[in-house]
């Protein structure tokens, strides 16, 4: 390296990091010089728009492409769905479908006893509703509970913590169909589990043909597949709790249980709420993994509401688009309600 600089003055030795930063800065400035003319050209119409709309409204211009896409692929289908729900027949084109008003909703909600699907005109719809309700209650309860427990353990300074965090997250990366097929092969009549049970002389069982066991394994499969995602969220929430709060509790000789109930849970509450609502929404929308796992059987034991909508609208004959649309709006109503409850509780926590 030269001992003097370009004007003959002694070159002051610099650290490698400063030299690297200097090189990078020089590189950046070359790039900027190349891009600057293009950016000046692009700036012209936006400056004109800013003069026209004002600085605040200019933000909408940048949001517009995303809003258009969202409108086309989310809002417009919802609006069309409302129209479909008020029509009958099995034509797919809206203009060919007869208007029936609220008849589809009436048909779906015609029951003498809502707790007994057999008393309903559309018994399969209400079986799907009750199946989904039980599934969501059990699946969310177990999943949030296990996720919290796992997050607490993974938040501690245990050996191979990084490895265990990966292990619990790995099922989240798998496709739902892959998850379903793996567990189907494990649980089927001549599957791995029965082979093991036969070896232990306990004896195997035809798990997926038994309605209760098929439902139980469906809950298990769903918890196993998705737990890692919520564990990650709860782990982030735990790590956001300041350490000095625990140090203060330690100095006050608070027990582990008291620390957990009086410090950890309250400070984790906002994160828990997010996890709970996300899990509830995802639970109601469960379809692909269960469809690949049990097909909704045996009978209708594991048929959930989204599968019902799919079968009525697309898989069955005739294709009852109107009924399926009406059922999907009823599901959407439940999800909107859950979201509003979350917003209300959130607001209460913030205001409180």
């Amino acid at each position, binding site marked *: 390296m030269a001992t003097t600089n370009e004007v003959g003055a002694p070159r002051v030795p610099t650290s490698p990091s400063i030299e690297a930063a200097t090189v990078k800065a020089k590189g950046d400035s070359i790039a900027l010089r190349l891009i600057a003319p293009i950016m000046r050209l692009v700036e012209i119409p936006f400056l004109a728009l800013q003069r026209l709309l004002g600085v605040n409204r200019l933000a909408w211009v940048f949001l517009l492409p995303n809003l258009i896409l969202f409108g086309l692929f989310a809002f417009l289908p919802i609006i069309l769905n409302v129209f479909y729900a008020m029509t009958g027949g099995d034509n*797919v084109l809206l203009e060919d479908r007869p208007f029936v008003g609220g008849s589809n909703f009436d048909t779906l909600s015609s029951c003498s006893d809502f707790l007994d699907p*057999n008393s309903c005109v559309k*018994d*399969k719809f209400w079986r799907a509703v009750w199946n989904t309700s039980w599934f969501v209650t059990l699946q969310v309860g177990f999943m949030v509970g296990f996720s919290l427990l796992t997050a607490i353990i993974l938040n501690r300074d245990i050996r191979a913590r990084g490895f265990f965090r990966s292990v619990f997250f790995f099922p989240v990366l798998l496709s739902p169909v892959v998850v379903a097929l793996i567990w189907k092969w494990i649980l089927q009549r001549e599957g791995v589990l029965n082979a093991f049970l036969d070896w232990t002389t306990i004896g195997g069982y035809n798990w997926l*043909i038994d309605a209760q066991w098929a439902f139980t394994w469906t809950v298990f499969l769903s918890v196993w597949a998705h737990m890692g995602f919520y564990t990650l969220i709860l782990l982030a929430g735990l790590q956001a709790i300041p350490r000095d709060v625990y140090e203060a509790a330690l100095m006050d000789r608070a027990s582990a249980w008291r620390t957990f109930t009086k410090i950890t849970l309250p400070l984790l509450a906002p994160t828990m709420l997010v996890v709970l609502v996300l899990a509830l929404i995802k639970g109601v929308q469960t379809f692909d993994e269960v469809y690949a796992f049990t097909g909704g059987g*045996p*009978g209708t034991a*594991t048929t959930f509401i989204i599968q019902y909508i799919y079968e009525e609208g697309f*898989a069955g004959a005739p*294709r009852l688009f109107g009924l399926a649309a009406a059922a999907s709006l009823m599901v959407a109503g439940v999800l909107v309600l859950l979201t509003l409850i979350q917003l209300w509780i959130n607001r209460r926590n913030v205001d409180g």
Partner: protein
Amino acid sequence: MRRSLAFTTAFAALCTAGTALVPTSAAAQEVRFMCYSDGNECEVYDEVLDRFEADNPGITVAIDVVPYQAILENLPVQLAAGEGPDIAKVTDLGGLNEYYLDLEPFVDAGYWEESFGGTLDWYRGGPDRQGIYGMHSQLTVTGAFVNATLFEQAGVDLPGAGASWDDWATAARAVSDATGAPFPMAIDRSGHRVAGPAISYGAALFDDNGDAILVDDGFTAFVQQFVDWHEDGTIARDVWAGQGGATYQDAAQEFINGDLVFYYSGSWQVGRMDEQVGDFFDWQVIGSPCGPAGACSGMPGGAGIVGFAETEHPDAVAAVIDFLAQEDIYAEVSARTRNIPGHLGVAGAGVEFQDASDGAKAALNAFAGSLPDIHPAAFAYQGYAGNRAMFGITVERVSQAIVGELSVEEAMERARADLEAAMAESN
């Protein structure tokens, strides 16, 4: 001036050259053919249609091989949305009639009537339409496969001709008990499959006016027997309780594995049995057992090649299907795919099935031989435009009865109500 003239000339030359590279619609037509295989049908069509393309340089046939489920579920939605293929191999013969291309203006109608006879009615969807809407590419018949080796090992005689469903159930249970084969009997999870036995138990399926009723005393009697077989272990629940909705499920793999004594399916499985069973065990086809109503009926069926009216190339589509309908081509395809021909000329001349073992040939002949036993109600059911709805209702409600969600009476009540609702919604 000179530079601009040179530029203009060069530009015009480039445009002309570019235009010459773009094929005109008259020069090249691509016909998309949505195909599913029971055995090797799509592969054989692909090879045979290479010859068609060689003889018709302006037409390219692109075969999209899809699972059967896509034909059942995706194709109708694609057609309704106007996004369907040009040609497809279908099994809902009358149900998709509203989308079919009428081939009559493009083909020799006399030849088609003479060659395909009554099967042309299956594609018409009703008496009001009299065109030519599809080529029945494979005639199928439902019937039973039996594992003859297991019978021999058990020392149980095969019930003879005219044996009843009860006789076969008793024999299958005896063979299963003696040999340890886990599954005595199985029937595919399909409304089409149980229609034959139901007719043999007295099901009429239609009233005197020709309107669909599905449920009557005969149908209920068969469903009760079917549920009882599941309860006493004659039929394992794995097939009908192993799926939900109206999803199709067969028991072919259990039969191929040598675990199933008596398997009620159909002639389209012969190729698969021939290839996959091999010398593992001896198997036979025994047609359809008899029921208390005096009938020993299976169900006819099969698949057809149809063109769709929304195609941009109706001439090309008709040319492709007409090519496949010619007697020599049809005979070759039947021989290579080991399917019973729906072409009367080919059936009359007999088919020399290629790469088929003696067992497979005997099986196909046994299926063909059971055609005269098929009840007229079965032919009417196969050609009825609303049969898909009836098949689906049968599978869903019978499955619920099997798993105990509903009693047989409740399931039949629900099936009646479902059919009424389906007929009201159908256009």
